[in-house]
């Protein structure tokens, strides 16, 4: 047997977490060390293997079951998918190391059996995220979307409070409604083209009313799941109410997944109906999200609510891609910028939620007015927040800066200066609400600070994520190389555009 088919990596990326989830459910605590330490390393190795084979053997399609479309389901493995898989592995790995400490510390009294459920749920979520990023079949994507929704809901209610129940219900209801909108779109597409394969559809779609209606249904469904303004209202209670490791997964990964599919559909499948006016409209919604999310974050009285509203705002940035990429001359820059932003936001937001969980545990509460001087008790967690915050604000030399700078240049170069203004205004607002927290955290506290030993397992993962959110900027050139692999999108070149 010669070199393994690159599909092997992809298969294992889905099968391994799935199998581990089942094992975790049946076996309970017995396989905990595998879940916490070994599996994340194995997943990292698998992602590395996949990226390696992508770089050397190029992008590939994988026909699951050996049936070609339109009969079977295929995966499309390209650079963008690999980047999403890699970021998923990073965040998941950090959460796996972090979670035992969190649940041990936060749920001493509540049902201990309940926290056992975190593991099968998290690993199932991991499997469904990976399956989602790989899939190129619009119906299969529907099933994985549902998997993600149910998994997320199951994890939100682990918090066990009435608020988290309400948040989970709201999230579930809207998620199901959004999925059904999406599914109706899928039905219409199949009815008029006879295929569910995104690659095949991409070359064939016409710009007629039916396609337009199908595209709208699918994309609106996904926008609800991405919590784009004004459909964001379900997000803050859900992300703020969940246990911290769960919040990290939801804010960093789950909302990115539906954004990822929106991108794929918009640029790969529906270019015939994706009109510039629609792109500008999405940009406007993104801009509103940036402003509204920031204002709400500024008014938040709890740390986790603040971070959750920050997610609403940061998701808005990603939607500036649509109008900016509509200008061919700067499309590459806009692409790179938006993807870098998405990746660095995933790292930064996960870092923030995990650090917030630690801070909440130390302070017994995450109300901002109780956190005065908390920085002295959890310096490492606060450093993680600071590093992540640098990236969120878009200050150099972080991944957030890299992304925003590329978007900014794209905006100015294509003469769409209003998006450039939105970008910088958003950065200022972000600084506003983040410094509001930091000022509280580093203020001199009235009580003499008790020394708390650093809980490495809970403070190192967010710190590492924060560092990664900053250093990812230096991987930007490599990110371009990766994203170019098999890109049907307008990436390519080095981003150099003649003046």
């Amino acid at each position: 047997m010669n070199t393994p088919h690159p599909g092997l990596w992809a298969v294992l990326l889905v099968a391994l977490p799935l199998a581990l989830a089942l094992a975790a459910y049946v076996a309970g605590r017995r396989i905990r060390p595998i879940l916490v330490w070994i599996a994340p390393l194995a997943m990292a190795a698998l992602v590395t293997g996949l990226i390696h084979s992508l770089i050397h053997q190029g992008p590939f399609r994988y026909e699951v079951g050996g049936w070609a479309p339109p009969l079977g389901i295929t995966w499309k493995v390209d650079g963008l998918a690999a980047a999403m898989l890699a970021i998923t592995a990073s965040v998941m790995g950090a959460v796996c190391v972090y979670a035992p400490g969190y649940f041990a510390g936060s749920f001493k009294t509540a049902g201990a059996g309940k926290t056992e459920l975190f593991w099968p749920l998290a690993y199932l979520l991991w499997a469904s995220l990976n399956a989602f990023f790989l899939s190129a079949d619009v119906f299969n994507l529907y099933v994985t979307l549902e998997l993600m929704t149910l998994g997320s809901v199951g994890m939100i209610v682990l918090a066990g409070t009435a608020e988290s129940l309400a948040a989970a219900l709201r999230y579930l209801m809207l998620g199901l409604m959004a999925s059904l909108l999406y599914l109706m779109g899928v039905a219409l597409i199949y009815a008029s083209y006879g295929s569910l394969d995104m690659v095949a559809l991409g070359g064939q779609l016409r710009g007629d009313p039916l396609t337009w209606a199908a595209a709208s249904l699918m994309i609106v469904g996904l926008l609800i799941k991405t919590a784009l303004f004004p459909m964001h209202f379900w997000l803050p209670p859900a992300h703020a109410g969940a246990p911290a490791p769960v919040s990290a997964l939801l804010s960093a990964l789950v909302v990115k997944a539906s954004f990822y599919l929106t991108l794929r559909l918009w640029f790969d499948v529906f270019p015939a109906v994706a009109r510039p006016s629609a792109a500008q409209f999405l940009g406007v919604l993104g801009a509103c999200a940036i402003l509204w999310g920031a204002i709400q974050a500024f008014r938040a009285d709890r740390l986790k609510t603040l971070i959750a509203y920050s997610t609403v705002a940061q998701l808005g940035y990603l939607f500036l891609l649509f109008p900016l990429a509509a200008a061919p001359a700067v499309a590459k820059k806009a692409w790179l910028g938006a993807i870098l932003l998405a990746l660095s936001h995933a790292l930064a937001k996960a870092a923030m939620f995990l650090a917030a969980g630690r801070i909440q545990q130390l302070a017994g509460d995450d109300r901002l007015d109780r956190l005065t001087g908390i920085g002295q008790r959890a310096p490492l967690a606060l450093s993680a927040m600071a590093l992540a915050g640098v990236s969120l604000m878009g200050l150099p030399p972080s991944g957030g800066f890299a992304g925003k700078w590329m978007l900014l240049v794209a905006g100015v170069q294509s003469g769409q200066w209003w998006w450039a203004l939105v970008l910088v205004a958003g950065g200022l607002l972000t600084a506003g609400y983040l410094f509001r927290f930091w000022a509280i955290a580093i203020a001199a506290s009235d009580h003499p600070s008790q020394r708390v030993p650093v809980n490495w397992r809970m403070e190192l993962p967010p710190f590492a994520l924060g560092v990664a959110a900053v250093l990812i900027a230096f991987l930007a050139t490599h990110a371009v190389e990766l994203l170019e692999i098999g890109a049907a999108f307008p990436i390519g070149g080095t981003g150099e555009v003649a003046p």
Partner: protein
Amino acid sequence: MNFDSSVPVLLIASSLLPGLIIFTLREEQRGLRTTLNLMGASVKLLLVAVMLWGVHHGHAYETVIPFLPGFDLTFRADSLPMLFVTLSAVLWLLTTIYAIGYLEGSANRRRFFGFFSLCVSSTVGIAMAGDLFTLLVFYEMLTLTTYPLVVHRGTKQALRAGRTYLVYTLGGSVLLLLGIAWLYALTGDLCFKEAGRLGDLPGEYAPTLRLIFAMLVLGFGVKAALVPLHGWLPQAMVAPAPVSALLHAVAVVKAGAFGIVRVVSDVFGIEFANRLGVLTPLAVAASVTIIYGSLRALAQDDLKRRLAFSTVSQVSYIALGVALGTPLATIGGLVHLVHQGLMKITLFFCAGNLAERLHVHRISEMDGVGRKMPWTMGAFTLGAFGMIGVPPMAGFVSKWYLATGALQAGQPWVIGVLAASGLLNAAYFLPSVYRAWFRPPSGEVAERAPAGGVEITWWLLLPPLTTAALALGAGLLAASDFSPLAWAKVITGREFGL
């Protein structure tokens, strides 16, 4: 990577690494922290010495670090960067020594020294940046790393000062960010080049370029405390004395002034900027700042506030120098970058000593302090005379060149500004000197130190004495080969192609 191209990186690393390591240390590991700090500062000085020698012999140290596609981090150390790098390296060592003594026994020293080192790294990055993008990256890093220092004490007042600082600097950053992006969209290249690179653009771009110039200068002007963007600086004096030294001399206001110099001379080019007609408004703004700062300084009783407004006034000499657009004035502006740093840091060190030892915070409390702390007040007096521009102090040299440059530019009104400023300087510095030496100790000072001198520890005394000596030396030995003046002449010669 050969030695020449790794030097700029090493120079940044010599403060970055100690800073990062300090964060990992425990608060109690005082000895290790001090060793790291002093080692880093010494290594940096050594590197600077090597580079000075190299640049003097015609080397140019260049490094390119790939960053974003189309936007690399480029570092280039030739004569202008070296001027700033040398200043900040020397002052960093002295400020570190001072801070070790000053913060003895206070809380959060790990945080302080860590961010302090990062600040200096950012400053070196700003100095050596080979293009506007790199400059922007390090300029923003400087903003970020300074904030924890400004709010170091964590009091309400400090937090308010920190907020003001952020509002001003981040506002400036926005202008800078947009201006640089616009410039890039226009020219596709952000590299610095002597005499600028925009001269070839067609004439119809002139209004756009003027707007970009305004955005960039305002962006840098925030840190350079150009009126009316100076509001953060007097507030920030609530921070501990070493931080004031950092803000006023080592890094922050200097970074702003340096940015303005870069924009005028190496992005637009002095000649081209003159043709665009943007230099005169800049000169006027600088002059207004000089007079306004001095007037406000006169009205302050709080010593550190008075010094802060004095900085507002003095830093604008640098902008004024390049704005006048003649070789002599440019020399005056550039050399003032160094001179002002040396003199102002002396004054802040001394003010810190007074506060620390005698709890003197106001001018009106300074009666007789000279008798109690003769060495400190000696350094203070030298610094004050320098600020006024008394020969042969360094300040005199700068003002002399500025004045002759103004004549060369045919703008004699500037001499009036300089003279007025000199008088005002005298008016707000001489009373404190007079009180210190010629009035008997009164009130609290007398109580605290009933008999004889109460000079302070060497950690706190050595730095101001050194800087005062340097300020004196820079004036006395201005004609020598390695004086700041000689460097400024070399730089100006290149810029004007002389």
